[in-house]
């Protein structure tokens, strides 16, 4: 399943990167050291922490994409870093909980 397959359901807007990334699994959290050790390669990482360090952690963990919850926007310098490192970032009006529920529905095939 690609990022493109889920973007409409989670009402996400692409900030930068590619929608063609394949994803598998989800991590939710804002503390970067926690994310650093728990985000697995190809995960979607849901957070409300929008800075260049988020981009660095996403790059090092090889996350498929960062989804910023609650309409959080990414600052320009972080967008630049994300573009340089090929990181996909989206923003969604949904809360982290609502994102998890929607993604679970999509992954289990129960989305309506």
């Amino acid at each position: 399943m690609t990022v493109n397959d889920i973007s409409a359901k989670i009402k996400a807007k692409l900030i930068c990167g590619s929608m063609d990334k394949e994803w598998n699994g989800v991590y939710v959290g804002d503390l970067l050291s926690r994310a650093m050790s728990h985000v697995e390669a190809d995960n979607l990482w849901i957070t409300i922490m929008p800075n260049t360090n988020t981009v660095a952690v996403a790059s090092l963990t090889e996350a498929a994409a960062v989804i910023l919850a609650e309409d959080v926007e990414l600052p320009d310098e972080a967008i630049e870093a994300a573009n340089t490192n090929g990181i996909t970032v989206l923003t969604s009006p949904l809360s982290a909980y609502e994102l998890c529920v929607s993604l679970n529905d999509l992954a289990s095939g129960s989305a309506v």
Partner: protein
Amino acid sequence: MSDAVKFHFEVDGSDFSSAGAASVMVKKKLRQLGYPPDIIRKVSIAMYEGEINMVIHANGGTADVEVSDEEIVITLSDRGPGIPNVELAMQEGYSTARENIRNLGFGAGMGLPNMKKYTDSMKIDTVVGEGTTITMTVKL
């Protein structure tokens, strides 16, 4: 045995936005050299945590990475305040990071524990008022 490959980085202590740049660079180099993803992940996490610590606590420093046939050795050196109580600093959740740093998502008290967890050995040489050198080894 082939010669060791060495990388050297100056870590800028004044710029949070570029913190982690050396780790991202090392990761790219290791991938180019064909190392397995689990080794790259270990080195990336350990080095990133160390790099962030140098920016938060020590106004930057240097990072050296030496790759040989048997191991990858990461040496992080700073001239910061030193660590008064290493045992306490190694406890998960213990942090002296300031509020403005925590607001950026740091200061979870997982830095040193993560560095130890993701490497095969870690040695901390620290002198209060002089600085800290941390040497980490990941076996290949």
